C-alpha cells in the first residue's frame, strides 16, 4: 500500500491500463473514470479525509496493481469502492489528531477584506439570479432571530410539504449559490 503523504506513483502506462480496464471505448472509459472518481472522492469527503483526491489516486494505484487478475470483474465501481474502503481504513489509522486553522474557520473575512467584499457582491448578484420561488425560500429561511426564526421556518416548511422537504430545498439552493459565487469570484479574479 502507498503510505499517507507519499507522492503520486501512478504511471501513464498504469493509468492507460486502468482506462482500458474500464472500457475498450476511449470515450466510455473516460466517462466511467469520471463517474467513479466523483463517487469515490465524495466518499472520502464523507469520511472526513483531509485529501480526498490523493486517496482516490492511491485507490487507483492499488487497483492497477491487481488489474491482471480483474479482467472478469463485472463492476469496476464495486471493485474500486472495495479498495477505497481499505485505503480509507488505512488513512484513518494513520491520521494525526487534527487541529483547525482557527482564524480561517471562525471569521468570514478570513481571506482578505477585499475578497470578502467581492464575495458579498457576488452573493448579491447570485441572489438576483435565483428563481423567484428559490429566492423567497432562502430569504424567509434566514429571516428573524430566535423564536421568530423558528416560527418562520415552521410556516415555510408547512408550505413546502414538511421539514425534510424544506431542508432539501434549501440545501439545493445553497449548492446553486455556492457554484454561482465561485464562478463570479473566478470571473472577478481574472
Amino acid at each position, binding site marked *: 500500500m502507498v503510505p499517507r503523504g507519499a507522492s503520486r506513483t501512478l504511471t*501513464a502506462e498504469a493509468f492507460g491500463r486502468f482506462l482500458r480496464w474500464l472500457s475498450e471505448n476511449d470515450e466510455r472509459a473516460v466517462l466511467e473514470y469520471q463517474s467513479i472518481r466523483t463517487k469515490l472522492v465524495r466518499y*472520502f469527503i464523507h469520511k*472526513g479525509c483531509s485529501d480526498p483526491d490523493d486517496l482516490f489516486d492511491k485507490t487507483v494505484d492499488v487497483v492497477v496493481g491487481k488489474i491482471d487478475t480483474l479482467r472478469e470483474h463485472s463492476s469496476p465501481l464495486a471493485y474500486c469502492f472495495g479498495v477505497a474502503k481499505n485505503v480509507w481504513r488505512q488513512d484513518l489509522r494513520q491520521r494525526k489528531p487534527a487541529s483547525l486553522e482557527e482564524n480561517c474557520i471562525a471569521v468570514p473575512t478570513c481571506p482578505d477584506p477585499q475578497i470578502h467584499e467581492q464575495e458579498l457582491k457576488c452573493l448579491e448578484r447570485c*441572489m438576483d439570479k435565483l*428563481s423567484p420561488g428559490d429566492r423567497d425560500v432562502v430569504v424567509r429561511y434566514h429571516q428573524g432571530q430566535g423564536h421568530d426564526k423558528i416560527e418562520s421556518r415552521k410556516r415555510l416548511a408547512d408550505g413546502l410539504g414538511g421539514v*425534510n422537504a424544506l431542508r432539501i430545498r434549501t440545501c439545493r439552493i445553497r449548492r446553486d449559490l455556492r457554484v454561482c*459565487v465561485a464562478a463570479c469570484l473566478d470571473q472577478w479574479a481574472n
Partner: protein
Amino acid sequence: MKSIADRNLMREYLLGKLDNQTEIEDKVSDGIVNNQEMIDIVDSVEDEIIEEYLEGSLNSGDRDAVEKYFLEPPQRKEKLRSAQLLRYYFETKPSHHTATNRENFVRPPTPWVFHLTRYGAFAVLVLVVISTLVYVGGVRTSHARLENQLAQEREHSANLVKEAELLQPSIVALTLVADRSRSAEAPIPQVDIKSSTQRIIVEIALHGVASGSYDVRLETKRGEGPLWSAKLLPIISSNDDARLVFDFPSRGIESGVYSLVVSSPTVSVSRYDFQAKVLH
C-alpha cells in the same frame, strides 16, 4: 436496524461516530455510493451540522467531532465558509433582498385633529377606490395568472441552466502531436477550462522512443515553473507508436500559453505548447 435514510444515523455517520461499527458503517457507505438519491439527504444533513456549528448549538461531543473530523476535507471547509458568508449577508448586509427585515424605524406621532380633517376626504376616496377596484379586479386576475405562468417559466429555465452547469464534465482532454520545433506554422492546440473542470488528461504522441522513463514538467511559455512535474513511462503499441498519457490538476491554470516539457536521458528535450482558455 435504522434505515440509512434516517437523518440521525446519517448525522452520526458524517461525524465519524460509526467508524468503529464496521457493519453499519459499511451499510451506510454502500447506500450512499450506490444510491444517487441519497446525495440530497447527505448534503442536507451536512448543511444542518454546519448551521448548528455556526449557531453554537452543538453539544461538546459533536462540536469536537466537527472540528477534528467533519471539517478535515477542504471541500467541507469551503462549505462552512460559504455558510458563514450567507449568514453574514443576511445578518448585516443591507440589500433589497433583506431590506424588508430592517425597516423597523419608529414613525413620529401625528396630531388627532389632522386625522379628523382627513376622514371626509378619505370617505370619498374609498368610494372612488371601490368602483375602480371592481373594474380593475377582472384585469388583475388575468394579469396575475400570466405573471404566475411567467414566474414558473423563469424558474423552469433557471433550473435547466443549473442542471446544464452540473452536467459539465470535470475532465478535459488535450492531445499534443507536434512539439514546438515541428509546429511553428500550425496553430497551437487549445484547451478550454470551465468552472467545473478539475483535471486535464493529456496524450502526447512521442517522436522516437527513449528507453526508460520520461520527465514531464508543466511550465509557462517563458519557462517559469515547473507548475507540475512527473516521471512517466510511455505506452508503446505493437507497431512501436509511443505516447505519454497522464493527467494533471487544472487548478491554478490561467488563460495563456503553457508548455509541457518532455525529456529523457537519451532523447533531446521537446516542448509541447498549448493555449489554456479559462471560461467562466
